């Protein structure tokens, strides 16, 4: 068992840290204040990250990506997690699911997305179908060589900046021993397709400047060549490629927690009350000990899952446990860090109140903590016939 990063991994992390410090951190306050990232800044970050060779790090090197394995990717995401989502997501990581592109899709979607010329987003959730994704009502019906899509998707992250959506829609129903089951297909839909309208979603307390959008489909017609994977087998493609997104969430949370923790640690070592440094009070110092313990715990869980993924042995439960551990750790660390600072912890002079707000979404998106626990427990109980 090897816990030390390799020299290459250290250098990769140094590169990302330097990029984050120089190209992203200086814009944090502006983004918080405006609740938006200007188009110019988006372009600047995209161009510089492309030039720096850190864009699309998850994609294979022979396709023009960074060619990093999952453990190194987790380290990269941890380093990005130091700053805020609205900024670091621009150094994009095309959805892994694009690797399922075949034929013309490769030149039309996969490669230009790796080159930063196109931007993807992914749409599963609907007003009536969140955790229960299979309950989706957005549907595509076959009409000759086309599909005609009708319905609504919501909470779709950065669809405002994307120029196409990896869409999941119901394309039929099959009868199973447990009743009827919807068949789901994945389609690549360009945002300029007639019949698709992308409109602003809701204001979210977490991740200011990172917008979620609503996608309305009204007789939106796309050719059958836009099916990603096979018809009716959308969830199979999703299951094959989307496991890493939960690790991404877990790894980003590590970086956020690290930043919050360091603020609290310095404060505890500096701030004096009752004639001594507050870190001397056990009530404060034990908080630091607990924060650090949980941080390392979550780190081990995340890197372990990433390592298993590299070995081709990660189960859904491994990814789920990493996500639970890291997202809940971040909530704890952000909250305790604020407590260590007292009133100052809530002021926007320091990044803590933001990290605290931002942390909230991580227990919800990419599968809520309850759904992750459901996954872990089913994996435990199913073999016992329960």
């Amino acid at each position, binding site marked *: 068992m090897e816990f030390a990063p390799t*020299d*290459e991994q250290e*250098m*990769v992390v*140094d*590169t990302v840290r*330097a*990029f984050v410090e120089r190209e992203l951190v200086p814009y944090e306050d502006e983004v918080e204040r405006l609740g938006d990232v200007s188009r110019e800044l988006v372009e600047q970050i995209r161009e510089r990250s492309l*030039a*720096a*060779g*850190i864009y699309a*790090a998850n994609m294979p*090197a022979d396709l023009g990506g*960074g*060619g*990093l394995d999952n453990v190194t990717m987790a380290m990269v995401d941890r380093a990005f997690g130091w700053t805020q989502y609205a900024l670091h997501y621009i150094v994009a990581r095309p959805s892994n699911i694009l690797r399922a592109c075949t034929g013309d899709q490769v030149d039309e979607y996969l490669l230009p997305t790796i080159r930063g010329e196109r931007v993807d987003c992914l749409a599963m959730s609907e007003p009536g179908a969140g955790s229960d994704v299979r309950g989706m009502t957005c549907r595509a019906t076959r009409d000759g060589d086309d599909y005609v899509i009708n319905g609504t998707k919501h909470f779709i992250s950065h669809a405002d900046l994307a120029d196409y959506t990896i869409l999941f829609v119901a394309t039929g129903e099959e009868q199973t021993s447990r009743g009827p089951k919807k068949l789901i297909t994945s389609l690549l839909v360009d945002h300029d397709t007639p019949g698709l309208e992308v409109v602003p979603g809701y204001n979210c307390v977490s991740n200011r400047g990172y917008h979620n959008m609503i996608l309305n489909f009204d007789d939106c017609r796309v050719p059958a060549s836009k099916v990603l994977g096979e018809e009716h087998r959308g969830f199979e493609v999703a299951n094959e490629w989307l496991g890493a997104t939960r690790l991404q969430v877990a790894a980003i949370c590590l970086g956020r927690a690290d930043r919050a923790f360091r603020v609290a640690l310095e404060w505890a070592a500096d701030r004096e009350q009752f004639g001594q440094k507050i870190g001397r009070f056990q009530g404060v110092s034990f908080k630091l000990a607990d924060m650090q313990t949980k941080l390392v715990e979550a780190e081990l869980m995340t890197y372990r899952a990433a390592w298993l993924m590299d070995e081709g042995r990660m189960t859904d439960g491994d990814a789920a446990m990493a996500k639970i551990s890291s997202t809940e750790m971040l909530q704890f660390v952000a909250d305790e860090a604020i407590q260590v600072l007292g009133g100052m912890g809530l002021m926007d002079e320091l990044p803590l109140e933001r990290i605290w707000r931002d942390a909230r979404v991580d227990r919800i998106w990419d599968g809520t903590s309850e759904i992750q626990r459901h996954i872990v427990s089913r994996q435990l109980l199913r073999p016992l016939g329960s």
Partner: protein
Amino acid sequence: MNVVVCVKQIPDPADPGQMDPETRTLKRDVKLILDESDSYGVEMGLQLVDAAGEGEVVLVSMVPNNEVSGLRTALAMGAGSAVLVSDEALAGSDALSTAKVLAAAIRRCEADLIITATESSDGYTGTVPVQIAELLDLPSATFAKSIEIDGDVAKVQRQTEDGYDEIECSLPCVVSVTAGVVEPRYPSFKGIMAAKNKPVDELDLAALGIDPATVGWAGARQEIVDIAEAPAGEAGEIIHDEGDAHERILAFLDDLKIL
């Protein structure tokens, strides 16, 4: 176009470790990094090779214990290969010994141009570049803010207090590059992965044909007689604005003859 860039690997200035009271030098048994001053030379070398459309950047470094971690950074930025010199007899090398070793290593490289920084961040004598040029019997230009190659001539803009001089040097020559004049690129992920497999030629004094008695403690012409803590900076003067702050600041600067 083959550009040799001399790169020094130094203890991380953010975590510099300690001075050895016996030798009065910096302890170098910690992890070493690429001297930031040299990252500008590496960037400039890479740009010149790009502009020439052929050739490569070759790094030359002298360091204790065959340390490569700083070299890897420069290789990941895009340098093609490296020559690394280490030898126990080099302990205690002064600037001239260092220049002798670097010159001997550079001789093996068929360089069209040799780039160094104007001074290292730790030793800071700023004497190595011209000594290398002297030992190799090459022309040298110092404090370059830009280098352009035109045939077999290097056109150099040399920073001065008032602006810059434009000078020309026949190739090959040694040019020292001022910090901050280009923006060193980030090592890309692909560059980092590729760096591991780039050739690093590890040499000792015997391989360079240098007599150990002429370098290191044995050959040192420079002696460090004393080291002392840098005096702490004095507290500045705080001017509270009562409507006339700008005048008082102007008067203050005037006193210092800055205006």
